[in-house]
């Protein structure tokens, strides 16, 4: 049993969620008991525009296999325009990650409103499945962090 | 090639580029049409007939030969639907079929008169025949 567990690939997935829409959407997924894999761990940020590309690079460096950023729908940002900044920054970052050999599928931006518990859960299920299909991320991992 | 009425309706939408769903049924096209009285199916009805897939009636309609291509309906439509394009598409669907021509060369001599401009013949053949 124990042996089987360690052999199974359990991806590490970081989800940045804005406080106003997506974090609330995740709460709604929870209160609606809409399951998604436990591999997803959410970090709360005030707005998607708070997410510095550095945070995502750091996650990959520390062994994350996928990073997803969720924010309010365009036009619905609590801070009016934050999600537009996020979208532009992530577009740039993702193209750079692609260049570095980190597959496009390992990163994703999704707009999830506070009412979209279903969407949150579906998105996370899809994303985890995608990461499973891509397997372990080896590109940016800091070898010093690697544990045997 | 045989098409169902629904397929014909889709084809009409495609070659006309008209999105029939945009229509809010105000009737301004028909209110603007100078040929309205001569039409058995009116401009606004072309939009709803196509939307409802009722193409057979349109193919038989004499309205397609009465449309003046004056674009008053296009200009004044508040929803940018462009009924004239739909009427032209129906007309094309008819004349593209064998035997669908509304004007044949042997009819021409008796229609001619002294002053008739070439342009009228050119346009008549383009509108009525393939």
């Amino acid at each position: 049993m124990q042996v089987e567990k360690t052999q199974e690939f359990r991806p590490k997935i970081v989800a940045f969620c804005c406080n106003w829409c997506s974090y609330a959407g995740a709460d709604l997924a929870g209160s609606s008991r809409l399951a998604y894999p436990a591999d997803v761990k959410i970090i709360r940020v005030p707005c998607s525009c708070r997410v510095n590309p550095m945070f995502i690079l750091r996650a990959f460096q520390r062994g994350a296999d996928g990073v997803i950023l969720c924010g309010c729908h365009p036009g619905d940002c609590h801070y009016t325009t934050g999600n537009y900044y996020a979208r532009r920054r992530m577009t740039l970052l993702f193209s750079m990650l692609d260049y570095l050999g980190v597959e496009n599928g390992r990163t994703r931006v999704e707009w999830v409103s506070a009412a979209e518990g279903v969407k949150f859960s579906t998105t996370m299920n899809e994303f985890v499945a995608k990461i499973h299909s891509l397997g372990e991320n080896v590109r940016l991992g800091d070898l010093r962090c690697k544990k045997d | 090639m045989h098409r169902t009425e629904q397929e014909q309706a889709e084809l009409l939408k495609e070659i006309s580029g008209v999105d029939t769903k945009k229509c809010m049924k105000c009737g301004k096209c028909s209110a603007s049409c100078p040929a309205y009285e001569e039409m058995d199916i009116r401009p606004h009805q072309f939009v709803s007939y196509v939307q409802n897939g009722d193409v057979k009636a349109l193919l038989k309609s004499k309205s397609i030969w009465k449309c003046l291509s004056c674009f008053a309906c296009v200009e004044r439509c508040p929803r940018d639907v462009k009924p004239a394009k739909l009427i032209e598409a129906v007309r094309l669907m008819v004349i593209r079929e064998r035997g669908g021509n509304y004007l044949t060369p042997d009819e021409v001599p008796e229609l001619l008169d002294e002053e008739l401009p070439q342009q009228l013949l050119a346009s008549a053949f383009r509108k009525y025949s393939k």
Partner: protein
Amino acid sequence: MQRIGVFVCHCGTNIAATVDVARVVEAAAKEPGVVHAEDYQYMCSEAGQLKIREAIKEKNLTGIVVCSCSPRMHENTFRQAAERAGINPYMVEIANIREHCSWIHKDIEEATEKAVILARAAIAKVTLNAPLQSGTSRVVKRALVIGGGIAGIQTALDIADAGYEVDIVEKTPSIGGRMSQLDKTFPTLDCSACILTPKMVEAAAHDKITIYTYSEVEKVSGFVGDFQVDIRKKARSVDMSKCTGCGVCQEKCPSKKTPNEFNRGLNTRSAIYTPFAQAIPNVPVIDRENCIKFKTGKCGVCSKVCQAGAIDYEQKDEIVTQNYGAIVVATGFDTIKLDKFDEYSYSTSPDVITSLELERIMNAAGPTKGHLERMSDHKPPKSMVFIQCVGSRCADKRGKSYCSKICCMYTAKHAMLIRDKYPDVEVTVFYIDVRTPGKNFDEFYRRAVEEYGVNYIKGQVGKVAEKGGKLLVQGVDLIDNKRILMETDMVVLATAIEPNPDVRKIATMLTASIDTNNFLTESHAKLRPVESPTAGIFLSGVCQGPKDIPETVAQAGAAAVKVVGLLAKDHLVTNPCTAKSDELLCNGCSSCEKVCPYGAISYEEKEVNDHGIRETRRVAVVNSALCQGCGACTVACPSGAMDLQGFSNRQILAEVDAICR
């Protein structure tokens, strides 16, 4: 070194059924800095909170982590508990092990493992938390209302009645707005002036209300609670303290050719004028562009006839600077220009008019003294045609995409009034839909049809052409599927309304957002309908969206309540999770300033001590009263000088590390 306490909640069985709480406690206790860890049935209960308070005191905790439900539920509860025990409320972090864990996972092993990781991330974050102090900012107990129509007047009256000072700034020479131009109002048909003028008088007489007419807002700075506003009082050329409002100057003024704006250009007025007889203040202004004295230097008739000696050609514009705690926008609307709808012959025929023009024609104080007549030959019409939705509900660029909302009702009103007063006039209405959602509205419309015999035709008009001194209306009846070609004497166009064109300029000054149709955006379409997303800015009337009078008055009252709620506070507590710039790292590049949606970042020349070197640098300074804490600037900053308190780079990275460990 922090001393951290971890409190794991069972939430009854909500958490404990899928998360092995004891294992979470055990794992948390091993994390660096954790000196206390325990679990309890309901942490949010009084008993649970007591446990937290006691632990803080007994173990000298400096920070706490509560593993429980979503912070959106109980973050405040636990912050207050921490504060009561004497530590800073911002030294609390929540690990959401209910909504994000126990409720969505079935496998106890998996859920427990995840709960441990979430706890670890929260511990890592709280280790880097710093005490934060909510600031306070002052509230100036005075409100500004921009626009003196019914919306502005009602808002001002409600605020003033609650005991606060209010200033109304109105661009035209009198308050009253669009409502003062109306003849009767639906659905009760009371005379507009009879219900509006008492309110105008009340506002003018109110000891808490100051009215600036013929004035405009010129500059706005500051923020919620303390806006500083420059108001330009345009030179009236008449001394308000001396003028008695006798009206002789207007009578004697030789320049009488200026189109009368109040009557929508249907007649003319003198160069010195009050817009209408009940104007408040009842003091005329000189329209300098059309005054002979100002144009040629000669004339001066008004000055000669004024017994009070009130005429002052030398008067200059004056700037009044005033501070306000809150600002209400009530700038109202205008009808759209009809130059793109000439199929209706509005530009070419004087007998084709807008509904607002008809209001003036039907008004006893209007250009025809209330007699219904054609503007071309002043003959009474025998038949009239009303066309609905002119410029409303348009998908093309000619008009507006929205429904103007008021036209169906005022058209029914006009039709009914005309049939009532002139039963021999035939009235036909061309409509697309008749929209009458409102109390007693549909009944009103049905009365127009059933009792007054107004002929409603479902269909539109394609062309209106002048012919033989009459108007030839070419339309369609969609129910009968037949062409309508009728001669008529007058055509009335239910012209779309649009926000007052000045609103764009005002919204920019206020940093209030505006939609593609120039309507001001509300903070939440359902739940915050009278607040702008910009704190301290409120919306009243049609500037926010098309409305009739009852709705406008209701919204005006709602806006006033929000203003009063704000002004009632002695100070405002500011969110301490604001951006902060490290002046040693800042290179003054302005990147942060450009992305800030609140204008919270400015630059100062500041003397800094950089490793012993003293120099003056241009550095970013965040106004914490304006900053809302979104963090856009932190990412824009190329030198890493800008950080967000409560969500700092180091804190978030620590969470990332803890999750990926």
